[in-house]
């Protein structure tokens, strides 16, 4: 992964349509947001956008049969997790009377044509999701959403760790 971690995480967050205050948190240029229902909703929308992207990456890689047999099982498990996270957060957005963000039309997946490219793209989005949930969770005001986001973070770390292991990156 030639691109520094902070750069690609920020790039993915920008592409996902994150607002400037959330990008500031992610990039370390802002320390805190005022705790409000509006900011909880902004965090939900930002997280949901990344979940949509993760689902698109996994589904495309699975459709193109890019995972080796032993790794396909992980990919199926992880896309299932992401769909669960998406649905949970869509439910939370709707509970707040808002309209959830939809998936983008294009995630620039045309060049993802090899198993290695798919694994690296999966790892990239998992690192972004892990970083996003870790940074944003401390800004969440609502007790139940904070707990939900923490459970989601545990899944994201699992996904990231498995792909790192597969790609030969140190995991302890």
């Amino acid at each position, binding site marked *: 992964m030639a691109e520094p971690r902070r750069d690609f995480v920020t790039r993915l967050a920008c592409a996902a349509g994150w607002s400037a205050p959330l990008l500031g948190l992610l990039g370390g240029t802002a320390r805190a947001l005022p705790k409000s229902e509006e900011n909880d909703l902004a965090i939900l929308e930002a997280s949901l956008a990344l979940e949509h992207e993760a689902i698109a990456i996994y589904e495309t890689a699975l459709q193109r049969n890019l995972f080796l047999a032993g790794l396909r099982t992980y990919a199926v498990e992880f896309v299932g997790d992401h769909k669960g996270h998406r649905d949970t957060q869509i439910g939370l957005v709707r509970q707040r009377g808002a309209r959830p963000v939809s998936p983008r039309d294009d995630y620039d997946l045309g060049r993802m044509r090899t198993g290695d490219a798919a694994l690296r793209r999966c790892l990239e989005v998992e690192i972004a999701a892990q970083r996003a949930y870790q940074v944003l969770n401390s800004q969440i005001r609502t007790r*139940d959403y904070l707990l939900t986001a923490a459970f989601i973070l*545990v899944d994201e770390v699992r996904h990231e*760790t498995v792909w790192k292991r597969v790609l030969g990156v140190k995991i302890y």
Partner: protein
Amino acid sequence: MKRGVSRRAALRSALGALALGAYPARARAADYATAKDALEAIEGFEAGVERFYLRLDRTTPASRLMIASFRRDRHRHRAHRDRIRRRLGVPRPEAAAASESASGALPDLREALSSLVYAHAEALPALGDPVAVSLLLADLVDLARHLTVVDLWIEAEADRG
């Protein structure tokens, strides 16, 4: 691949229920009233995990590198909890010496680690302080990684038969 963790399954059910706006408080394994309760629970689960490390360190030389790495993380986690206690004015409890676990079974270690991970998640709402939440989240990320490493170890053992 299958992760046999009843506690996690219960939490996952709760997560699903939350999406429908029907998150039952009783479905949670723990709902800590205070930061003191939450931190004490974490320290109890952490001691439970350490009991497995003591045993594995003695009986399974191949695990020593991993355990040394996990203990370095734990050292940082304790420093984080000390900071949280200072911020929130929570007194530090007496540390008890851990004794070796009777079991060296990886699924039992996995269950102990899983309890520690989810105690961190469940502690967050009790802290009420963004800096304290950030510190505990960083520890949660480390511990979720440890849990996955143990999962991968269990899977590798199963593949070897």
